[in-house]
């Protein structure tokens, strides 16, 4: 029968690999979303300012459009919060699976 410390060592390695992959994927996803969002804001404002200057939209409508971007930023933040929770939950469940499989394999 293996030593308990050996089991813990193997689990630690597995968890480290699992965490590294999850964190890397998540950071990359957030970075891409952040870059895209910053580009969107700039493009929108330029387009709406031109529409306002050409009287294609009213001042009130311009304000509402800017509010849409504010709301969208909040919605994206809430999505990111939910997605992060889901990833942590999946990671925790992955750890449970890993620990169970490792113990059952070695004991």
């Amino acid at each position, binding site marked *: 029968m293996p030593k308990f410390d050996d089991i813990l060592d193997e689990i630690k390695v597995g968890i480290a690999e699992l965490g590294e992959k999850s964190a890397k994927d998540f950071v990359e996803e957030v970075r891409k979303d952040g870059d895209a969002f910053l580009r969107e804001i700039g493009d929108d404002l330029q387009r709406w300012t031109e529409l306002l200057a050409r009287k294609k939209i009213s001042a009130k409508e311009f304000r509402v459009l800017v509010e849409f971007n504010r*709301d969208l930023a909040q919605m994206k933040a809430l999505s990111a919060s939910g997605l992060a929770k889901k990833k942590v939950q999946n990671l925790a469940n992955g750890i449970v699976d890993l620990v169970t499989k490792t113990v059952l394999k070695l004991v």
Partner: protein
Amino acid sequence: MRSNLLPRRTSVLVALLFLALSACKLISDYDALSYKNATDLRVETMALLEQGTEPYAGHAAEVAALRLGLAQAYEYEHRKGKLNSDSAAQWARLNDPAGALQHTFDTWKSAGKLNEAFVSEAKLKAGELFDEIIRLERAKAE
């Protein structure tokens, strides 16, 4: 001595794992009705905004019906409890009287008609708001 301890320590570990599993629920499960509510209301919102260049009076009843649908969707998500707080907060945003979607309907009512360019832009943005709700709900299934 160590091998004698192993079964006991293993059972403790297993017990801890079950505890961890039950404690690690951080977000609500995927809900097919929530997904349907979001996609249906997205379509209805787009269809109604498309009529925004027409007089508001002719669409007041449709606006009221859509507002009711949005309120019902929020109530459904809100009642799921704390694990669903992010989704509920997204629906709250759409229902917020100070939010862009509600202001769009208010502007339509006060101005009588919306400008065509505004309708095009508002449709894009409103669609993106719903897309975030749909995105989060879909992620719960992964």
